[in-house]
């Protein structure tokens, strides 16, 4: 039931986002759109509940956390991404690379956290998730520039990848 509500909420929110600007209600929606939004939310919630909000990722189903996710994406994540891009741009131009695949300990417990962490890693500093350990949620990441000395270590902590903010903490707060 909870999963149904969460999925329906998400679906309704997305639908309303898509149709914003269509009518007079709150200067955003027309009444028919709101009606259809309810229908769509119920229908999609019914069909997709076991996928979207399965019991294992109950924690991430909290709409308040979604707002945090938005804040994360706009704030720390974007800054990290900008830095990453400058870094990659530098390497594109100069061609100075020192690639390698390392194992990163994330400490994430849930699928959702792993996903967010992996995607954050992929989009930020010179790193790219290649594989994931299904049990321990450790990530294997390809670094475009392995810092000297890192290649000898068995695993590295995820915190070390991010220079400006503590992204893993954000992710944990959102998803766990």
């Amino acid at each position, binding site marked *: 039931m909870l999963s149904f509500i969460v*999925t329906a909420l*998400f*679906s309704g929110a*997305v*639908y309303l986002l*898509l*149709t914003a*600007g*269509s*009518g007079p209600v709150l200067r955003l*929606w*027309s009444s*028919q*759109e709101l009606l*259809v939004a309810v229908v*769509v939310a119920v*229908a*999609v*919630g019914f*069909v*997709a509940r*076991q*996928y*979207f909000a*399965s019991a294992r*990722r109950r924690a991430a189903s909290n709409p308040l956390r979604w707002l945090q996710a938005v804040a994360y994406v706009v704030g720390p994540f974007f800054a990290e991404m900008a830095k990453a891009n400058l870094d990659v741009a530098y390497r594109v131009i100069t061609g100075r690379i020192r690639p390698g695949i390392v194992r990163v300990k994330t400490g994430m417990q849930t*699928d*959702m956290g*792993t*996903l967010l962490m*992996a*995607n954050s890693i992929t989009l930020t500093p010179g790193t790219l*998730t290649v*594989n*994931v350990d*299904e049990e321990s*949620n450790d990530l294997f990441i390809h670094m475009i520039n392995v810092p000297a000395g890192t290649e000898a270590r068995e695993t590295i902590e995820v915190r070390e990848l991010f220079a400006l903010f503590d992204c893993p903490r954000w992710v944990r707060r959102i998803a766990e």
Partner: protein
Amino acid sequence: MKMTKIVRTTADLFFPFCLVFGLYVVVHGHLTPGGGFQGGAVMATGTALLLVARAYDDVTGRIRKGAMKVCEAAGLLIFLCAGFSGLFAGRPFMANWLAPDGALFRTSIAHGPNAGDLNTAGLLPLLNVGVGIEVLGGLTVILLYMLSGIKEEKKK
């Protein structure tokens, strides 16, 4: 074989999004670009996403061929019955008899830009929904059958 946890979770997250977006395209078929086919294809992509992220055997328990076939047939029957309904309104087959003065979907709109008025276009939204369901079912069944074809071969 299933893909990694990351892909699976992404697929799960995007499945309702695909459905919502597909429904959005279907429902707004008469107002914005799109319609039954396009929306149905988007929805079918959602199921294709699930199919690709998981192993075939894991999915077949949830997305059943039989159900999808019924879905498809139901969409077509909606279409056909909507076509027939014109006959009983004294119009020919496939007549959009609701459009000018029906009970539902009847708001007449002026020539020119109009936005967000779903309650228009007579039979068209109904036909859109019918075709959308049909395309969703049909494309999913095609994918399921083709996947079952390669799975069988793997066993040998």
